[in-house]
């Protein structure tokens, strides 16, 4: 809209810039604050005496000699074995993304090329799943899992997460494949490819943007999940988010809240980089559904 003809009054643009600055502070300040505070001792992070303590870290300096300490991280990662949860999260995310993408790509491609209109039903299932709290499903899974004795281990959780994620993945990839012109694989078929060869040599090279976007969202789902993982995983198999929640249970008693703060920062950092590198894909994925209506 910012064309030369449509000049803005100065007051208006000042207002705009002011608002943007306020919004940026609201959006980013909590993260910066927590990141900064994670290198302090608890008395600085929660400062009763003087709030500037949490910026300059006077108590931290008194305790450790420098205003920055890794004590929180040490406690969380080494004493509380947070690294275990990090590895578990890695495993869960990796397998959830891989399996949802494999099923999603093949299924989405097949659905988009078959004559029958699945779109509606896919959309409906994806919608219903989006709306249903995952925890309602978890309560259905739990009793059978107890009976079959598969509760608490990573593979079951991965399967459940994939299942919850699948309608959404299928729908996204399906609409993406429909945007790839049919003529592409039809011409491959004319040249003598089988359907699978057409997929392998013609579609695969052009499908990466859609697959990456979908993969990002599957990753976020697996990474951010709390309801499923906290209910379905036993203590030693916990992923990061339920592990942090578990920290809180003990921290309020032992005054080790800085462990939780450090763990929270550790869990946020990967997301930070994810947004940094894949910003365009995330925006594309978020808007894709909307623009198509």
């Amino acid at each position, binding site marked *: 809209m*910012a064309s030369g003809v449509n000049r803005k009054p100065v007051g208006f643009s000042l207002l705009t810039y002011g608002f943007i600055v306020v919004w940026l502070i609201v959006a980013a300040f909590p993260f910066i604050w927590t990141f900064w505070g994670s290198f302090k001792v608890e008395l600085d*992070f929660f400062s009763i005496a003087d709030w500037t303590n949490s910026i300059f870290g006077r108590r931290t300096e008194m305790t450790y000699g420098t205003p920055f300490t890794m004590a929180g991280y040490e406690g969380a990662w080494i004493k509380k074995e947070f690294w275990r949860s990090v590895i578990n999260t890695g495993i869960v995310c990796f397998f959830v993304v891989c399996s949802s993408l494999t099923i999603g790509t093949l299924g989405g491609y097949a659905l988009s090329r078959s004559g029958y209109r699945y779109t509606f039903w896919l959309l409906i299932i994806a919608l219903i799943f989006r709306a249903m709290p995952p925890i309602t499903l978890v309560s259905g899974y739990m009793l059978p899992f107890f009976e079959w004795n598969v509760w608490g281990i990573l593979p079951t959780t991965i399967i459940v997460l994939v299942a919850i994620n699948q309608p959404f993945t299928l729908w996204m990839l399906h609409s993406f494949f429909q945007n790839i012109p049919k003529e592409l694989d039809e011409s491959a078929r004319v040249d003598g490819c089988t359907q699978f060869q057409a997929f392998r040599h013609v579609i695969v090279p052009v499908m990466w943007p859609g697959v990456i976007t979908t993969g990002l969202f599957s990753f976020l789902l697996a990474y951010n999940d709390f309801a499923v993982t906290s209910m379905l995983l036993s203590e030693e198999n916990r992923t990061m988010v339920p592990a*942090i929640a578990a920290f809180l249970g003990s921290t309020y008693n032992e005054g080790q809240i800085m462990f939780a703060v450090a763990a929270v920062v550790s869990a946020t950092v990967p997301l930070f980089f994810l947004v940094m590198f894949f910003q365009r894909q995330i925006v594309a994925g978020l808007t894709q559904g909307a623009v198509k209506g």
Partner: protein
Amino acid sequence: MLLFIAAPIVSVVLQSLYTPHGAVLVEVETCTPLSGCILETIIDQDATRELREAEPLGQLVGLAIYFDRGHLALAEVAESWRKSDGLGEFWASLRNLPFYRAMAFTLTFTFIVTPLMVILGLVIAFAVNSLHRHLKGLVIFFSLLPFTVTPLIGSLILFWMIDSRGILGDALVYMVGDPNFSLKASTGLMWVSLIVYGVWHAAPFAFVVFYAGLQTLPMEQIEAARIDGATRWQQVRYVVVPHLMPLVTFVALIQLMDNFRVFEPIVGFNAEAHATSLSWIIFNDLGGETRQFSAAATSSVLTIVGVAILLSPVLARTWRDFKDKK
């Protein structure tokens, strides 16, 4: 895939109709030479096990769990309706029943957060759109953060800040002037902070969608409007807003669903005493030492019904569109 979707729902419905067997009690008279005979009630372990094995799902109790105190609480509602004079008292007594308490918070949360975040998202989108090209990327990056961060972690970060010893809590104490002021102490303030979190978390989503919508604005129409002498405000009112309307519906819809299942912030804010939601009730029933599957399953079914009611207008519309297309 269908198996994994349908099976748990069936399992939930089944579980909600059953209740675990009570232990089989038998009365045994034990006589000792010195103290005489006493009649004791003990658990007949064998019989209990047998009964549990015969019907592993438990006793069929039909809809009884739906109507008990923990859920719809029909008896209690009817009673308080008879006893209380005036609606106010009736509502107050409803607030003591867990299901209605959760409903009250869930609905308040849903219907306050959704419009607020749509408005905030729109304003941010307009503001960012008028920025210089180079600044946009940076602003979008920071705006996305609250949305992508894990809900539990995001709420924890905010919770630590509003702690009376955290920076925001400290500032509030200073502003109010009461050193004992704490957000955690009052139900109303806790609700406000949860709602603030909800808006903070969801606004970036609305912003990104609206921002994308602004990129496809019909420039000719705006120019035509300007030539016809429309002021800036009129251009926005009559050209831009109608253009964004479908997006507003879409965002509002997604957010209605997301907010209805509000759960993580309650855990993160440690706010169970002041605010519960349906999801939280299920979580609470499932966790802990006594895993109350039947109770959790019943709440799940009620939640699914709630979601269905919320979604029904949308589903009906989509179905109509689909039929029209055919």
